[in-house]
């Protein structure tokens, strides 16, 4: 096999591998479905999105390189083309190279990975604290500084539609399975600390737009924090199997501008007696 031929075949294979990569990593998005991690609305979610993309691209490049070499060999070095097998069985030099290069790539990846993680775990300087308690199959939110607390469960129209053979089509329900009766209301631009725990089994509190999930574990109080940059409604779900209705305990966060949040707090405090009764009834 002449050397030029090998290069031509390798280039053709490279083009095919890149086309296949495009087909599986880019084309599906053209259907209008979301296929990638959200950039979210916090510094953390942006960090995690960037990390995800960096590592994804490194993996894509490694994959393309490996598969190009492999399929070039599959095209060229086949018996049906009369290719005779070479005899070599090892090369210390090659093996050292393909041990060291991956190590270097790992070091490059470890730097942003470490920075983002250190930032994620630093919950100091929080301006308010919300305690989150998971139990089968609801969330309880307690605003420790504002003395507000309520329980948040799956919205009743989703709940009716999700029964076995309910006859209600999920598409006809707004935000099917992702809506609650009492959403968690938070201010934007304020560092908020969460204390996360559970009453019965392990749950996991996850809103993708905030960029992380953290397990709610009975007997443990886990810390996490957020600082939401953009007002809006953000939806998530319990992420740790917690029994039969694990799929039916969503989370809704409504992020309000500071002054709107303050007036929401005042509203809640005004109607506090009423809402306390509601909680007791539940």
């Amino acid at each position, binding site marked *: 096999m002449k050397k030029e031929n090998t290069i031509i075949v390798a280039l053709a294979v490279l083009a095919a591998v890149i086309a296949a990569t495009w087909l599986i990593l880019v084309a*599906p998005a053209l259907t209008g*479905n979301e*296929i990638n991690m*959200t950039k979210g609305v916090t510094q953390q979610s942006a*960090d*995690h999105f960037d*990390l*995800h993309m960096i*590592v994804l691209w490194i993996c894509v490049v490694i*994959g393309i390189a*490996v*598969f190009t*070499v*492999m399929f070039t*060999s599959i095209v060229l*070095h086949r*018996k049906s083309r009369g*290719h*005779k*097998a*070479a*005899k070599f*069985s*090892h090369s210390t030099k090659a*093996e050292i190279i*393909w*041990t060291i290069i*991956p*190590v270097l790539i*790992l070091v490059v990846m*470890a730097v942003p*990975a470490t920075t983002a*993680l*250190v930032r994620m775990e630093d919950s100091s300087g929080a301006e308010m604290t919300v305690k989150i308690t998971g139990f089968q199959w609801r969330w309880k939110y307690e605003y420790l500084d504002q003395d507000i607390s309520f329980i948040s469960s799956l919205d009743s129209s989703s709940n009716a*539609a999700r029964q076995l*053979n309910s006859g*209600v089509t*999920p*598409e006809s329900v707004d935000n*099917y*399975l*992702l809506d609650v009766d009492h959403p968690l209301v938070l201010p934007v631009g304020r560092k908020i600390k969460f204390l996360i725990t559970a009453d019965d089994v392990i749950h*996991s509190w*996850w809103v*993708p737009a905030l*960029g*992380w999930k953290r397990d709610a*574990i*009975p*007997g*443990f109080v886990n810390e996490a924090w957020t600082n939401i940059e953009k007002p809006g409604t953000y939806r*998530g*779900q319990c*992420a*740790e*199997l917690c*029994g*039969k209705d*694990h*799929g039916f305990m969503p989370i809704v966060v409504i992020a309000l501008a500071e002054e709107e949040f303050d007036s929401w707090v005042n509203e809640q405090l005004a109607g506090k007696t009423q809402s306390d009764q509601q909680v007791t009834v539940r």
Partner: protein
Amino acid sequence: MTTEAIHEDLNEAHDDHDHGDHKPTGFLDRWLFTTNHKDIGTLYLVFSLTMFMIGGAMAMIIRAELFMPGLQLVEPDFFNQMTTMHALIMVFGAVMPAWVGFANWLVPMMIGAPDMALPRMNNWSFWILPFAFTMLLSTLFMDSGGPAAGWTLYPPLVLQTGSSFAFVVFAVHMMGVSSIMGSINIIATIFNMRAPGMRLLRMPMFVWTWLITAFLLIAVMPVLAGAVTMLLTDHFFSTNFFNAAGGGDPVMFQHIFWFFGHPEVYIMILPAFGVVSEILPTFSRKPLFGYGSMVYATATIAFLSFIVWAHHMFTVGMPLQAELFFMYATMLISVPTGVKVFNWVATMWQGSMTFETPMLFAIGFVVLFTIGGLSGLMLAITAADFQYHDTYFVVAHFHYVLVPGAVFALMAATYYWLPKFTGNMYSEKWGKIHFWSSAIFVNVLFFPQHYLGLAGMPRRIPDYSPQFADFNMISSIGGFAFGATQLIFVGIVWHCAFRSKVRATPEVWEGSRGLEWTLDSPPAYHSFNTPPEVTCNALSRAD
């Protein structure tokens, strides 16, 4: 087959043929009381295929319920029983026994031993399994239903299982006993019964990977047994090992479980590495590239598998230092794994390749396992894992390394050695149909799950928001087609064993090297009664 020594031995084997072929007559004597490594290997493989079908049927129920949003077929609790049982059956009933089955058949033939070192224990370690899995499956018919807390059995949730939980724990104990006995047997065989000249660093890669796997099994199965025993006493005898209210620690279970669970992952995949390292050289007609570094890479992976367990639990709220340690250690695994992949590609490079079904499955393995490995590297990044964890991205990742990873390697091994085991060739045409259909549909099944996970779909949910509908439907269609395709596999195996008219030669494949190919196809019931003399030319590696 290139040396006189082996020729002589082969002739001797021919002379011995009648003498070595005393099979017990009578069904019970042959199968229930058997101490023959080949028969026990067959039992393991048939058992594994049966479990593969049962576990697969459960996967079909899961994919059918997830075909579209809304609950159409099953209640959520039954759905959770299906996901839990699917995993337990596939891990402990399908993949692990299949590898033990191949080890039983192949290890003695590959190292020139007449049988396993401990043949009666071999019989026992197999016959425990049907009882263990009957008991496990019977929980589905009990009033309290089967286990529904996931195969990871996390407390406190798993303690909400009813009285059937005792049966689950006892079944897991029995599987553990079986695995440990199987491992002891394999280690004893490899260390004591190698033919003269079969030095450790001459052993075929499949034997090496199984040796290391056996040590992993012995190290971690008792840990699992301890963990489930503590669950048992927490459930029935009021202990508080994992009950926070009683001073226990629910996270401790996760540490113990994954100290077992992560090496368990490599228990399922290391023998696959071995199989691929046997098949690629044969069909490339070229020795395995970098045999020595393949052995060391396997050992390194095995060692690292013990110090990465907590990457399964990045979201439980560990200290920063612990998260960093487990992230770095996990990333390191990609180095020896990368060495393996590069060495496989270098084995194919400049070979003289043909593409019979075993080769197709081996190449499919290398490509798709690499994809699963790369998504594993992504999952190692702790901060990004705060998003990936417990989503369909994880489901896609581990199915890529287990289905087109471990299961494809099992398929490759079946096509590669079945002619040796049965003496008949399988249908190459149907083998290729099986490969292409599997390779296409496994990707239709699992690749869209990456998108689902990244877009925010949690795992282990029976119903989902309509935004996830399209890719779930595609995934389910792929699942049904992949499931149906495996019926072809059953047909091919049955045809090869009982109907095929094409006899296999002793070598079976043009480029095959190794002691098992010096025996007849099928080999005599008792092979290598006299140890063969091993010279490196006969082996699948060059020095």
